[in-house]
């Protein structure tokens, strides 16, 4: 399988780590609303793509991978850093697809049903980000 689900990963995430992500996510969402109210939708819209939990998520991956390696008796520092770097590369691809998501909203929201437009934009994001990931994976495989 190209993509797999590892539900056991949920157990390795501690409650306070979930709480941190909820807090950061909630704060930046509220802040985006405040910024839009204060400075208008042009400035406020920038923050709809603010990497709110990216530092926390990447750090989490680094810590978990390092701990897994340490539990096996090895120094997991390099492994953690590489895992975090790979995760960040994936986020970069997802962000490119996010441009398409935003474009669909910008182009179609004024004249169409908002719920349908949001669904279409979300599906477009998922499709493009997955395609970009597959392309990057194939390119990486050809190089090595």
């Amino acid at each position, binding site marked *: 399988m190209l*993509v*797999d*689900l590892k*539900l056991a990963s949920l157990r390795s995430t501690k409650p306070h780590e979930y709480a941190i*992500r*909820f807090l950061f*996510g*909630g*704060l*930046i*969402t*509220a802040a985006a*609303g405040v910024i*839009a109210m204060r400075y208008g*939708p*042009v*400035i*406020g*819209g*920038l923050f*709809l*793509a*603010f*990497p709110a939990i*990216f*530092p926390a*998520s990447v*750090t989490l*991956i*680094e810590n978990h991978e390092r701990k897994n390696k340490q539990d096996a008796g090895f120094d997991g*520092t390099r492994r*953690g*850093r*590489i895992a*975090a*770097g*790979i*995760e*960040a*590369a*994936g*986020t*970069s*691809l*997802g962000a490119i697809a*996010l*441009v398409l998501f*935003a474009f669909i*909203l*910008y182009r179609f*929201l*004024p004249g169409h049903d*908002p719920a349908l437009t949001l669904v279409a*934009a*979300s599906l477009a994001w998922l499709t493009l*980000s*997955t395609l970009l*990931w597959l392309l*990057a*994976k194939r390119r990486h495989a050809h190089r090595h």
Partner: protein
Amino acid sequence: MTDLILRFLIGGAVVSLFAVLGDIFRPKSFAGLFGAAPSIALATLGLTIHHNGKLYAAIEARSMMAGAVAMAVYAAIVSWILLRYKSRALTVTLALLPLWFVASFGIWRLCLR
């Protein structure tokens, strides 16, 4: 105030949901896609459309494109540094966060103003 509390709660929940998806998917490179999921937008655009209308939300979405380009650049540079240098993820991501601001506001200044 109610609006802000609602944004906080919905935003926290939606962002957390996408973060959980990022936790459970493998490989890591695929899971990373969810770090750039439109979580904040999905959490807030419903409220925005309700309060300010579809046109307002469309204007926000236009600027979101600039923010998304900035996020792509930021995440790519973070990845590049982590894969090549002995740096901690938290240090790199926080130290480079101003780059997102510079890139997004730069694009705003050049293209959206």
